[in-house]
Every structure is written in structure tokens, then in C-alpha cells.
């Protein structure tokens, strides 16, 4: 086992190595020369992913009240008026159910990151018109969904700063793959 002193020395050495490596590393030239440089415009048109740091979240904001209106008109037909009725995925409730004989996986009970809501709703929802919602609309419906799940208060404002700061109830609920876990013989 390392002492903390040894560990910090190792970390310093590693940092120095990475720094030197980064400085000393020469870019390898392309081997085949196929393809072309991507333009900033085509990158930004497709660069729609939002990671847990919130990188990529656009300007804009939304409230729970605005989200209630949007949800009722664009989401409730598939997910139910309170997010629990379906017929499609249940979005609300289920907290505390994961260890029971009837686990209910929802945004509130299962999703580990609030940023995933923005990413997914923009790229894939509503099912019949993906990528049709504006940033303000998405922030609003995210605010409503988080409030329905008891995660943010009724007066919450969701934007690029507040969304990554939301701590989801099941944030610590995921573990790495331990398989093989079923051993025979």
C-alpha cells in the first residue's frame, strides 16, 4: 500500500510526465490524406451532446410553470398528464422502489444526471418531431419534470448554470461491470 506521501509524489511525477509528454508530443501527420478538414459550422450543427459538466448547454432558461404548459401540450399524450400514467415510459415517481419486487425506473428514481434530460429531450423528443423544441422550451419541461419528481422547488429556474448543479436522487446508484459474476464449476 502507498502512504499518502508516496501517492502524492507519484501524482506529481505523473503530472510532470503528462505535461512534458503533452509539450513534447508531435502531431502525427495523416497517413492516407483521405477526407477533409471539418468546418466549424458543420461541427457545431451536429455537436449536440450535453455531458454531466453541462458543457454544450445553450443560453436560455425555463421555469416549472412554463414547463407545465409545454408538457401538457407536447408530452402528456404519451407519458400521461402527471408523468405516471403512460402509455409510454413513466417519468415520475418510483423513488425507493428499486429494491422492491416491483422496481419503477423513472427520472426521479433512476436517472443519475439531470444533464441527460436536456440531451435526450432535444435529440429525440417528441417522438414525432425530434429536435423541434427551443432551448427555453427544453429548460422549462426539464424544470417541470424535476419538480414533479420532488427534486427542485416550484420556483426553480433551470438554465446552463443550474442544471448541472442538480443532484439526482440515484446519482450514486450505478456500479461498474463486475462480470463474470455467475461462475459454474
Amino acid at each position: 500500500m502507498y502512504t499518502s506521501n508516496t501517492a502524492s509524489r507519484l501524482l506529481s511525477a505523473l503530472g510532470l510526465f503528462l505535461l512534458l509528454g503533452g509539450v513534447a508530443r508531435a502531431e502525427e501527420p495523416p497517413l492516407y490524406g483521405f477526407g477533409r478538414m471539418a468546418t466549424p459550422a458543420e461541427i457545431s450543427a451536429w455537436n449536440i451532446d450535453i455531458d454531466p459538466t453541462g458543457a454544450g448547454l445553450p443560453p436560455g432558461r425555463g421555469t416549472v410553470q412554463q414547463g407545465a404548459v409545454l408538457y401538457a401540450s407536447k408530452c402528456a399524450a404519451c407519458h400521461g398528464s402527471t408523468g405516471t400514467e403512460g402509455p409510454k415510459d413513466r417519468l415520475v415517481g418510483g423513488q425507493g422502489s428499486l429494491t422492491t419486487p416491483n422496481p419503477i425506473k423513472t427520472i426521479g428514481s433512476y436517472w443519475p444526471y439531470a444533464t441527460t434530460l436536456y440531451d435526450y429531450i432535444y435529440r429525440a423528443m417528441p417522438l414525432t418531431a425530434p429536435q423541434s423544441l427551443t432551448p427555453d422550451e427544453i429548460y422549462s419541461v426539464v424544470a417541470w419534470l424535476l419538480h414533479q419528481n420532488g427534486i427542485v422547488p416550484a420556483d426553480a429556474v433551470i438554465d446552463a448554470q443550474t442544471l448541472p448543479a442538480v443532484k439526482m436522487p440515484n446519482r450514486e446508484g450505478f456500479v461498474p461491470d463486475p462480470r463474470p459474476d455467475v461462475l459454474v464449476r
Partner: protein
Amino acid sequence: MSSPDQEKSDPSNRETPEEEPVGRRIWLTRAVSAMGLTAAGWIAPALLPAVEQNHTDPTRIPGRMPSPYGSRASTETTQRLTTATHSLTPHQSLHGIITPSALHFERHHNGVPAIDSDRHRLLIHGLVDRPLAFSMNDLIRFPSATRTMFIECSGNSGKEWKGPTGKTVQETHGLMSTSEWTGVPLATVLTEAGIKPDAAWVLAEGSDAAVMTRSLPLADVLKDALLCYGQNGEALRPEQGYPLRLVIPGWEGNTCIKWLRRLKLGVAPFMTREETSRYTDLMPDGAARQFTFVMEAKSVITSPSGGHRIEPGFVEIRGLAWSGRGLVKAVEVSTDGGQTWQPAQLQEPVLSHCHTRFRFGWRWDGEETILQSRCTDDSGFVQPTRAALVAARGVHSSYHYNAIQSWKVGRDGQVTNVHV
């Protein structure tokens, strides 16, 4: 040529099924003699009813001309079983290891997009030295590679967690198929863009209406992932990702992103919906396993299987075995509900990360019994019993069900899905 034909085509006038075609043949033979062979060959398809043509001796009539794109025999009818989100491969009717492209299972998250290959681009950006855009022609110019591999949806057999649900092997194991895949190694194309030293994950994104995404650990996919444009010798089928699909040997099907449009290199997983709320495996203690990529060793008897009916006497037991960790090392078959096991014959060549066909000659004595198969791969992993799998993971993990499949043979020869 009125009366004989009209009488015969009325079902109410039919005699025994055995006699009826003979009567036709006599009539047809006479007609052919009277008209001459060439004339009959020309007249018969136009004037005789379809049933009559089927009973025509094919050695006496010239066949149809060559066709630009082939189709199967009109009497072959096996097909995929479709739902709104997926379709299932009919393994009960297939031979060998290759799944015909038209019968390869489908799973998509908002339909099959219509993509013009000439306009399709692959964008590579993020932690690379040079963000690059490739046309399909660019990608096809790179050194290519071909591998025959299975793709299995992690939800294959998923309904079996809760009990014996599927009636046929198509329903229990239809979310897997094998094709010969051709493309350019992912490593070749990423190296062309220049991988920055701190890149550790890659986001792969499709250009379907779900803009399907998965984060993948870079070190793993650099080893053997392929950017595929070929399937069984021709361009990918639309439902398999035309014109470009990522195929990762042995990993759950949803990581093999179809209609691939973008690869973004980053330092950490992007935590998309498909790797958080979906494709994670809930355990009894409430913890969910994440990034469970590998499809573990599994096998299933495809014939006889659910819905088949067998006769006493010789029965060749046929099935498929596979492992996402590598090679199938052995398959054993039990014809007594798991009490005794005997080695099955493996069809050569056995390929890594590929379906392996196994066969076992058996003589059924007409008594009720249960048929099972069990796969061992070259990592030493042995396919578990359902009891062992459920003891380890409970019944709510949805994905990665790879237990031994049991088919009960009743005294009437009827085969059904049971759990033992």
C-alpha cells in the same frame, strides 16, 4: 380446354388429395403431347391457374430468365416477426451460421432513416489533432477488413427473466443474427484524425430520428471495432445502418451504432440516456450495473425448438452457440433435462465473436423429456443455469439473459419452452 380444368379447380369437386394431382398430370401430359412441348411451355404459364403450374413437371418447361436481383423460392415463407420497435430472426428455420441479410434482426429507436449514401458524412472531432469529415467514398478507400460476427441485442431473451414467455426460438432468441461485415478499422480512421493523449472515451452517434448515441471506452474499441459499409457481400441493409455502421465484436448490439454520422473523442463518458436510464442492469440490492458491454457465452437449440413437432426415431439436434469474449470452445447437449451432458459437434471453422453451429445426433424414444445446450468459451466461462443466473442477479436486470434454454418434448412430440 374447358371442362377438365374447371372441374378440378372447384375445391368441392376434389377427390382425395393423392388422386387429384395425378389426374391433372395425365391431362397435362395429353395436352403437352397435343400442342407440342414448345407451345405448351409458352401457353401453360399464361393460361393455366397457379395451382396447375406448381404441378407442372419442371423438366418439361423452360425455366424463367436470369433476373437482375434475386429472390428466394416462392414457396419459402419464413420471415421476421415484427413489432413497432424491433423484428426477430426466425432461427427455427435457418441453417449454418450466416443470417440472410433480409432476415437479420432489427432494433431501432425511432424508425429506419432514408439516407442518401452520396450525401452521408462521418464527422470526427473532439480530442483529435484534426477534425475531419469523410464521405463514404473516402471511407471505402482506406485499407479494409472483413469479419464474420454475431450481433446480439442485450435484450435478447430478456422476457425470459420473468418466466418462460417466448413460444418459439424466434421469440426467445430472435434478437441476434450473424453477418459477414466489411469496413475500415475504427483505429485506422481515428489515427488519421490524430488521437490526443487525454482522449479516453468516444461518443458514437447515428443519424436516425433518435440520434442514437453511446459512449465507448477508446482503448477497447481501438482494438477491433470496424466502421462497416458491407454486409454479406453487398452494401448494408437500411435497417442495419446503411450506409455506415459501427460494429464492435462481441458487444451488446446497441453499441454498434447504425447510420453512424459522428465520433467525438472526450475524457469521460458522456452519460447519454442510452447508458444511464437504458441498457443498465438493475440488481436486487438496487444498484445498477453500467457499461456492461460484453455479451457472455450463450447457446440455444434451434431445432427442434418451441412450436416444432418431432417423430420418434432419429432427430438431429441443431443449434447456435456464441460468446462475446471470443471463441466457442465446446457445446454440450443434454437430452434428459440436464442430468447428463454429451459433447456436440461444432461446425468448422469456429470463428471468434461469431455464431457457431453445433449438431448432435439423437434417437427419440417417444417419451417426455427436456432438451438443453450449454456453451463453454475460451475464457473458461460456462453458460449458467437459469437458477444460477437468477441467484446472482435477481429477475429485474432486463438485459444480458444468457441462461441455458430448456425445450420440453411432450409424448405427442410437441416442443415447448419451459424453465427447469
